[in-house]
């Protein structure tokens, strides 16, 4: 996590979140992680350590939960998240070509973030809009019937 090395993160938000859950039990673990992710955009190791100090929840336990659920990120995310569907419908409609086109355009693999921190690229199992296949979602916007040629213009809308 090179991003952590840049400058120490402000722990104020984490402190506030932990205070709100006092005394924290393991039932609070997921809600706490969600709030931390809302505040920091991901789950930075140093912030998780601070949460552990303040709540008594173990870092190892939080890490286990954070790696179990797709919703949690352990690395800094780009300003925009691209989710490309690799469900069955999208797959037969050429979803793999779309994935490859995004890879080429952004020069990242699925799960990675562009060097300028603009995009984080993820693949997901299904976006639930198979009638639009192949589908790409950027933040909360759906793009249906996507072609390899339309990728560039879609991405250009996010700066």
């Amino acid at each position, binding site marked *: *996590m090179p991003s952590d090395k840049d400058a120490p993160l402000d722990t104020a938000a984490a402190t506030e979140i932990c205070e709100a859950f006092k005394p924290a039990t393991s039932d609070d673990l997921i809600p706490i992680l969600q709030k931390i992710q809302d505040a920091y955009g991901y789950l930075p*190791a140093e912030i*998780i350590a601070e949460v552990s100090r303040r709540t008594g929840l*173990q*870092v*190892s*336990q*939080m*890490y*286990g939960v954070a*790696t*179990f659920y797709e919703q949690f990120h*352990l690395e800094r995310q780009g300003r925009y998240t691209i989710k490309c569907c690799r469900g069955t419908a999208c797959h037969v409609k050429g979803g793999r070509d779309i994935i490859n086109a995004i890879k080429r355009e952004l020069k990242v693999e699925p799960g990675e973030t562009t060097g300028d921190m603009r995009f984080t690229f993820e693949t997901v199992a299904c976006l639930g809009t198979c009638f639009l296949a192949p589908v790409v979602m950027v933040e909360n916007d759906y793009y249906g019937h996507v072609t390899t040629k339309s990728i560039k213009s879609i991405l250009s809308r996010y700066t």
Partner: protein
Amino acid sequence: MSQVRLTIDDREIVAERGQTVLEAALANGIDIPNLCYDPRLSPSGSCRLCLVEVEGQAPLQTSCALEIRDGLVVKTDTEEIRQIRQTILELLFAEHKGHCTTCDENGQCKLQEYAYEYGLGEDAFAEATRAKPIDNYTTGNLAMEYDPGKCIRCGRCVRICDEVQMAHALTFRDRAAEVEVSTAFDVPLNESTCVLCGQCISTCPTGALYERSAKGQGQAKDLVRTRTTCPYCGVGCQIDLNVSPKTGRIVRATSEVGCIPNDGNLCVKGRFGMEFVGHPDRLTSPLIKRNGKFEKVTWQEAIRTVAERLNKIKAESGPDSIAGLSSAKCTNEENYILQKFIRAAIGTNNVDHCARLCHASTVAGLARAFGSGAMTNSNEELKDARCIFVIGSNTTEAHPVIALAIKEAVVKNAATLIVADPRDIELVRYAKLHLQQRPGTDVALINAMLHVIISESLPDKDFIRERTEGFELVVEAVKDSTPEKAEKITGVPAEAIREAARTYAQAETASIVFSMGITQHTTGTDNVLSLANLAMLTGNVGKESAGVNPLRGQNNVQGACDLGALPNVYPGYQKIEDAAIRAKFEKAWGTKLADKTGLTIVEMIHAVEQGAVKALYLMGENPALSDPNLNRTRKALEDVEFLVSQDIFLSETAQYADVVLPTACFAEKEGTFTNTERRVQRVRKAVEPPGEARDDWQIVCDVSTAMGYPMQYDGADKIMDEIASVTPIYGGMSYDRIESVGLQWPCPYKDHPGTKFLHKGKFTRGKGKFHAVPFREPAETPSKKYPLILSTGRQLYQYHTGTLTRRSRAIDQKSPTGYVEINRRDAEKYAIENGDSVEVSTVRGKVVTQAVVGDRVPQGRIFMPFHFAEGPANILTNDALDPIAKIPELKVCAAAIKNVKSELVG
């Protein structure tokens, strides 16, 4: 405990309420296969292998999680169950490498055992999904290796780390087929919260977790296991040395779940600290120093030289010019023989050992208050104490396996923990209260607690009336010791003192646990007497889970004291001043004995300076690193006319010797150690000693015989028989009685069952005696030139002078060198950063070491471990003595610190 009747596989069985079906079955000899079960852990029911059929319940049940009840009818081995188990095993093997022929665990692997039992076809052992070993959290770690290909994801390692060790280092990462064991954020093991206890290895049912150094050294099926007692601290863990018959070397150390006193748990030293045994540095032949150089000689020449020189010095300067240091590392039998040699063959009581530096004040204080200077309770009783007061004991580091019982009491049994310690030690995390007293002010703290208890009418009046004497003296002595006054002296807030006093006094059972933080002071005996006052005042002694518990430091420091390696008592604390006792030993040993109390360790060193002591006979001691004010000690070792050292290594001390005699270590001999809970346990020979090394007792017997006082025994067991005949507290001990489980003294006669806790109904001395203990300042207080308080102590990974632990590569990787802990605000003040080279100095000397900056010590105080020869803390420590116990004040001295980084660079 009430009993439950149930039927398992058509057999009616009786089991204890609260047990699970699996436990009841196993206890009755019915085997139910299981992979995720370990009696030390709460059930998880995750491997599904222990499924059983319960009459009247449709789905199969996991027997490890099903509690028994009356009338339950269980079937463990139906055709349906066998089918399911076979499928489960096949699924496990789909992801587990079935490479049994090349696996170290071969022969001890449960998965392998069940694969055979359930007749898995060869096709089940297909290549695992991940065939190649991949990098993981143990890559590069010298202690252990995790092989995900052999892992069945049962979670036992994660659970034991959470539930028993409470280190919380491990977790499952990811999900479904990707799941693997790892550390938080996948950091290397040694950078996580792992304490290298290796409990994860101990619970792993397959070969997925294994000691790195044991890999390829012999498969489990071929190793020969010898049960013996761990040679490190006083807990007395039972370990099994696994020896390869091919190489004759120790491959790994394991421990059996269920064994007393450690239930299969070990710490880093017991698990990974055995490399010293077959180490190439071991001494293999006797050495005599000629012209400043050691030369190898025959045993005959060495023994003759020692006998002649000692006889000459004895003839010229009298027996009191010779002194002997026995060893808390050696066996009971060897300690008995050494003190007998000094007393009967030499004719002096100048015999002592390193207990002088650790618990002399405990022995002196508790003997005065209760009549017996030992832990009143057993280790396991701590689990059930309602309140535990830990003062001056960094238990998780110095006695890790006893710390497990303390943590269990708090976390699982809701006991209240009070920690009084100048440092922010690990146990503080589990404590309701942390009293951070200024070092050396324990008496003021405890007196204030007594004051609160008395003024709030919390004393146990019946106990005081019936069981004790001298109560009025204490009432008078503490009447002005208010918490407010104590706050000024100790720095602990008055309200915290009040709360601690109330919590302790009101608990149904309260146990005090203490160690060197109490004893290593010029007021050491006073500190111990104060704790005895506290226990008696509240009736918290003489019953189960309530008492005063000094945790003994060395594996056999209890035994060395018990067997009379002390200048004022014969074996069994029988006083040399008592003419009748002396007459008994004169008869038993067939010679006249000296009636004058001998010299203690530090007094011996001082007597060398004055020319009164001319010869020192050392058995396994290393005063050149362990004793206070080293410059002075080392000068004495250099100046003494004749120095003999029996040792397994050429230690810092042995290098000063005129004659060095190589000895067998614990793994190479028969004998017994007595652990901190007074349990006499067997030490057994697992490997051959190197070269010509011999048992300490045999060497001493030969020297004695050559000096004209013949001593000869056919074996260590015969020495124990002689010990039993002259030592009432060991009267019922013999090797046949302690073959499987050790016995706790007092054990006065042959069918006595041993004593779990002391002073039941009556104190050893009759009535418990209160002592008025006024507060005294430590011998040295901070000054302008030396503004900080330095304390020394142990850390988890190393042991004492490091001669044993520093030879373990796994330990060295985790703990490579010494350091000084300093508070971050002081560090700022002195311009010191973490890792900087600093010079720590006191009026006695200075050492250069590395700074560890943090919050573990408060401002104004620094801490150094004393294990490291390259920055020996004892150059700095004060050799001022407690007037009664003669223990030096290793915990408090005035020190200064400065950064020398720039000077080194320059």
